């Protein structure tokens, strides 16, 4: 998952805690191996290796592709599963940004869900295009573990994969899980505390990764239509929703609205916390 993953459970039963931990670790690994482009045997690499030929995907991958397609429609094409190739123009390396904006026009030709032939469960991915589940895989894994935990125990459990999290029940002593939102000035310190009793929280934006061009501040989320990061977006958006997939989608889509992030979330009547 590329980030620390943890499962918190309030129980006196060490076997339950171990079972939850094992399942979460297994699921995080499985989703990572299956959908990471850095894993040689992953489904995304297999799709790419089909060189524009029809490729039949399994049921889970089909559901992920459907979900990505829905976000593409709901974001007016700003979110796109195929936008991962933009990493050839923009890269974030140890806090420094390297950009090669001359490559953007060429890369844009390799982006666009409407260029992908998708008839569940067959995909035709044109040569040169890539699928990247980076924006949805982690949240999906959190939801999978949460659903499983809910089926196993009545004890309160919190699944936190790199800051995207969902709870099942809440610790009785305080009545809620205490979740800190990382400060944008003080890395590693919480600036706000959220009391989560039920549901999920996902955060988009990483204070440590941003770009400044001609005095204009850009985040690290790219608009698939322009190939550029979104200008004037909040530095961090945390959204609460029943599932981590919904919370993550809301925070990503809001980030893509830039200046209008808050207005978008207000219209959705979402509970959110933006740091600018």
């Amino acid at each position, binding site marked *: 998952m590329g980030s620390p993953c943890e499962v918190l459970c309030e129980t006196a039963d060490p076997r339950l805690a171990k079972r939850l931990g094992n399942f979460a670790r297994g699921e995080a690994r499985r989703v990572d191996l299956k959908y990471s482009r850095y894993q040689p045997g992953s489904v995304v690499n297999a799709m790419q290796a089909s060189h524009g030929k029809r490729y039949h995907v399994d049921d889970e991958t089909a*559901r992920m592709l459907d979900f990505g397609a829905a976000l593409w*429609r709901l974001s007016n094409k700003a979110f796109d599963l195929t936008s991962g190739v933009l990493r050839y123009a923009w890269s974030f390396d140890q806090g420094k940004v390297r950009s090669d904006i001359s490559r953007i026009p060429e890369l844009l030709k390799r982006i666009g869900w409407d260029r992908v032939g998708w008839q569940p469960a067959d995909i035709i991915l044109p040569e040169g295009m890539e699928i990247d589940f980076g924006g949805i895989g982690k949240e999906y894994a959190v*939801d999978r573990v949460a659903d499983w935990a*809910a089926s196993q125990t009545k004890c309160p459990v919190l699944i936190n994969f790199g800051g995207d999290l969902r709870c099942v029940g809440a610790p*009785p002593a305080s009545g809620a899980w205490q979740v800190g939102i990382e400060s944008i000035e003080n890395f590693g310190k919480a600036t*706000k505390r959220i009391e989560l009793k039920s549901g999920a929280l996902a955060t988009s934006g990483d204070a440590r990764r941003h770009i400044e061009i001609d005095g204009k501040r850009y985040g690290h989320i790219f608009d698939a239509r322009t190939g550029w990061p979104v200008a004037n977006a909040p530095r961090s958006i945390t959204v609460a929703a*029943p599932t981590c997939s*919904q919370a993550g*989608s809301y925070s990503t889509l809001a980030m893509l609205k830039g200046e209008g992030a808050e207005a978008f979330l207000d219209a959705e009547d979402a509970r959110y*916390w933006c740091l600018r």
Partner: protein
Amino acid sequence: MQLKKKPIGGKLAAATCSLLGALPSTPVVAQEAGDWDIDTSLLYYGESDGRVTDVSLDASVRRAFDEDRALNFSLTVDSLTGATPNGAVPANTLQTFTGASGNNSYTAQPGELPLDPTFLDTRVALSGGWQQPIGENSRWNVGFSTSHEYDYLHLGVNTRYEHDFNLKNTTAYVGLAFAQDDIEPVGGAPIGLTPMLAERDDDDDDGDDFRGGGDQSKDVIDALIGVTQLLGRRDLIEVSYTYGQSDGYLTDPYKILSVVDPVTGVPVAGPVGGTPYLYLWEHRPDSRTKQTGFVEWRHAFDRDSLALSARYMTDDWGVDSQTVETRYRWNINERSYLEPHLRWYTQSAADFYRTVLFDGDQLPEYASADQRLADFDAYTVGAKYGRRTDYGEFSLRVEYYRQEGDPSPGSAVGDLAGFELLPPLTAYIVQFGYKFRL
């Protein structure tokens, strides 16, 4: 409530449902935690036999900034009423005493322990502090305290530094506190071991210099060093040592000693211009050095927890005390707990503690008949019940306190042998608390 149409919410929920197979039946419940922790309590303390009653109202607020910086304030208002022993012993005759201002008097019936009924006071105390992290593993606290009564003003400052070692399994701390107290006794501070004067009829005098000793003050310095150590997952031990030094006026300006015949135990007659019987104002040394050692062990069971502590104090007045205290927190269910509490205390008398002074003996340099400096044992039995609700935590604490000294010490000669010179003291404490976050 107006139903709002969410532009994409429904479609996103449908897409998520397809992805996960189902949506959870519970809605999301998340809210930003309040920054202010507010803890309020109302306490009633009542001693038996109509002695001291204290009603105390306390409010503490704590505001956290980021994770580990915090500001806190605490305000307490006490209202004390009732009567306290004035230090004199009972007699077979009526005893008459002069009030501190000199303008009034009170009596003790034959056989009755003399109590000063003019004891009535309102105390207001305010304290505050700031906690600031220094680096990853240290914290620094600075604070102040002040309290005011009609005859007493306390001003104090304190600081404390904590450092975590050993992956935060060990925390060491040092602290320093300084206080300066001004005492403005009604009628002025009495001059130690001089006779209590008779009541006078003097309306135009405010009584400020009736007893001749004017205003007084004292300084107190406390230095603290300690360590808390985690022992495994379930145990925590804390050890600390405090050194305290008080200098200045440490005498109680309202306490006296009876002077009695060394054979019959009968009070001797007062001097010209004094009370009918002779009473001398108490007098204590003007410096006191206290050393305190403290150790506490806390253990977490699966559901409950236990705290057990012991304290040993010794000072250069000859007072040694030991305290053993335990609390068991029984978490009855998810929302409520019951916490039984037991405390046992014992102390030895101060070297200059006297039940009475004997007529004809040479006057000691220091003497006090204050029962708080006597040899006594005390215990407290109580319990606290707490219940968490969606609006905060309510608690109720009820405690019973009993203090017993030697009612008939060796100095109980003649008539005195027939009286309870140090009667047991019992008190009830009832405290209602409400804690919430804003």
